């Protein structure tokens, strides 16, 4: 039970008073970020990274806080799904189906409480899964050579669009752009590449600036374009009357949803949206005609909510063990790790064991904190829904400016950030996904390093890249990741659309 010992040490780290305080702060901020209109989880975490830096937080504290933000944002996303029928983030889409009808029936408080409990159960299951699976996967990953890593990175890019993604070629374009930006600067043989003699570019493009620009600034521009500055109507929530029997009734659904979500989160190319979708669909099948799905069945709220939180914790598995994130927000967390000078991947489990296990323990504690925060404080978060974006987004933009400015006190970085923001707006208009660009920026240096190592070992023979069974397997999966969206993508997308589009139960 080596794992247990590490976990206990992890609790030692996570329960240190200042870490606990930052976990609480992170959980609160995360729910806020999830609840506020126009601030997705990836965006929110990205804006907080420079602040965590300029605060001079210790690595484990910074990571604990931002992991709590990440977990919190998943809780926050459900609030507007239930009350307004508008998903706060994409994975919360399925929660609309039964959550909103419940709210219409005057059971908004119950729906919110049930979804909080289900989120908690989903995250708990997935965190336990993470504890069991991560060390095994990390051990396995120690057998990877540079060629396998190179193939693994390709797999990460290929599956990033997800099997429901629309145009995989645009993922490839985005990844190539990101990797190209990553080659700017002095490489590890001391050669300047694409610096054009500009001093600020010698050290390469700071990915934090790129991330904040791409997410935060482009979001502001989108809101201006859609003229979505006005707030939403004020919402009130009825008084909560929830009995243990109600919670017991949703337990099986939550457990099933959580397990499914975890699996979807770990697998490349699935992700939280698919996790909650499968969770909901399976629940409908299992319960069958006894349920009132689509008309406000509590189990229809619990299953997708557990699924989406399970998936978000599950997504941490590949990020922590392999250094390969599978979603936008985990990519942003990876950015944090890299900037803290922690090399993610299997070695992290031995070299930075205190940090890894501290974060995992913090995830467990964070979930309890979130449950405690979310049931009594839901009124506050509900009020936040009606904050008009016309005030909120300029302030968020300003916070992004302050954060970037506080890293280096240079105006150059801010101009760069604005440029990335405008580019991000154009990319989004062209439906070029932003996450592969960011992942390219993050993984570029490692990917090139592994390519060089592999070719150095083989003396320039390129076949080494697909020489081992493992590498071939990774290449095959990467290929499937690009091809499958063309085959099953339209089908799955149509199904998800039919379900969410009509909001009613569809016989399938």
């Amino acid at each position, binding site marked *: 039970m080596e794992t247990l010992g590490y976990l206990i040490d992890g609790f030692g780290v996570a329960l240190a008073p200042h870490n606990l305080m930052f976990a609480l702060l992170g959980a609160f901020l995360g729910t806020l970020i999830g609840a506020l209109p126009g601030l997705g989880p990836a965006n929110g975490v990205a804006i907080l990274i420079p602040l965590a830096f*300029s*605060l001079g937080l210790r690595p484990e504290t910074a990571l604990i806080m931002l992991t709590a933000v990440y977990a919190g944002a998943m809780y926050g996303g459900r609030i507007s799904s239930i009350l307004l029928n508008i998903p706060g983030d994409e994975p919360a889409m399925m929660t609309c189906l039964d959550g909103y009808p419940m709210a219409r029936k005057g059971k908004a408080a119950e729906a919110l409480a049930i979804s909080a409990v289900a989120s908690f159960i989903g995250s708990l299951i997935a965190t336990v899964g993470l504890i069991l699976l991560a060390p095994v996967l990390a051990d396995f990953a120690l057998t990877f050579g540079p060629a396998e890593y190179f193939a693994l990175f390709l797999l990460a890019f290929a599956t990033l669009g997800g099997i429901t993604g*629309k145009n995989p*070629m*645009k993922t*490839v*374009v985005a990844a*190539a*752009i990101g*990797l*190209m930006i990553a*080659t700017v600067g002095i*490489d590890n*043989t*001391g*050669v*300047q*590449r*694409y610096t054009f003699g500009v001093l600020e570019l010698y050290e390469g493009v700071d990915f934090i600036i790129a991330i904040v620009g791409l997410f935060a*600034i482009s979001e*502001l*521009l989108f*809101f*201006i*374009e859609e*003229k979505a*500055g*006005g707030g939403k109507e004020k919402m009130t929530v009825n008084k909560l009357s929830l009995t243990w029997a109600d919670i017991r009734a949703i337990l099986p659904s939550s457990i099933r949803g959580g397990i499914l979500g975890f699996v979807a989160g770990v697998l490349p190319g699935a992700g939280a949206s698919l996790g909650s979708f499968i969770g909901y669909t399976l629940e409908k099948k299992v319960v069958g005609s006894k349920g009132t799905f689509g008309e406000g069945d509590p189990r229809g709220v619990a299953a997708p909510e557990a699924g989406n939180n399970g998936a978000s914790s599950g997504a941490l598995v590949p990020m922590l063990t392999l250094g390969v994130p599978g979603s936008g927000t985990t990519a942003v967390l990876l950015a944090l790790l890299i900037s803290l000078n922690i090399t993610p991947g299997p070695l992290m489990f031995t070299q930075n064991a205190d940090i890894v296990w501290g974060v995992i323990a913090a995830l467990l504690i964070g979930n309890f904190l979130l449950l405690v925060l979310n049931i009594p404080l839901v009124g506050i978060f509900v009020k936040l829904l009606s904050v*008009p*974006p*016309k*005030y909120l*987004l*300029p*302030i968020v*933009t*300003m*916070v992004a*400016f*302050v954060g970037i*400015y*506080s890293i280096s006190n240079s*105006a150059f970085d*801010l*101009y760069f950030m*604005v440029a990335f*923001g*405008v580019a991000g*707006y154009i990319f989004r*208009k*062209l*439906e070029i996904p932003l996450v592969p660009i960011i992942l390219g920026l993050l993984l570029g240096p490692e*990917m*090139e390093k592994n*390519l*060089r190592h592999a*070719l*150095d070992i083989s*003396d*320039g023979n390129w076949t080494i890249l697909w020489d081992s069974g493992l590498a071939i397997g990774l290449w095959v999966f990467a290929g499937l990741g690009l091809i499958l969206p063309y085959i099953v993508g339209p089908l799955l997308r149509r199904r998800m659309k039919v379900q969410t589009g009509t909001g009613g139960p569809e016989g399938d």
Partner: protein
Amino acid sequence: MTFNDRIFGVLLIVLAVAYGWGATQFPEPFGGAEGVGPETFPYLLAAVLAVSSLYLIVRPDPDNAWPWSRTGVELLIAVAVLIVYTMLLQPLGFILSTLLAVGTLCWRMGATPIKAYVTGGVAGVVVFLVFNFALDLALPLGLLSFLEVN
């Protein structure tokens, strides 16, 4: 209409060629050429980008409409505000430039001018105080530096 992807695809191919050509210009690294030099990875990327952009040109997606006319102007204003904000941050100081930038953005997004600039001012002062006193990070005071307390 499928112009967007085609035009963007052409631009990207130009980028791929320029990037690939740039890689041929790298000086030879110290210690002589190895199997993989600094240019190997860029060559790969240039090839991947060229092929995938060709695909965009051949099989483009339908266009999203660009905001011409008034909305487009609003967007340009917003970008201009951000650039001016950056320029003024040090000379004017954080509080005043934030008042102007956040205020203008709120106003252009539909708030009444008074409410907009009050929001900007309050946000500027609050963030300044939080950063300087609670977080111990100095933001520039600029024109207001006579208020400085030590």
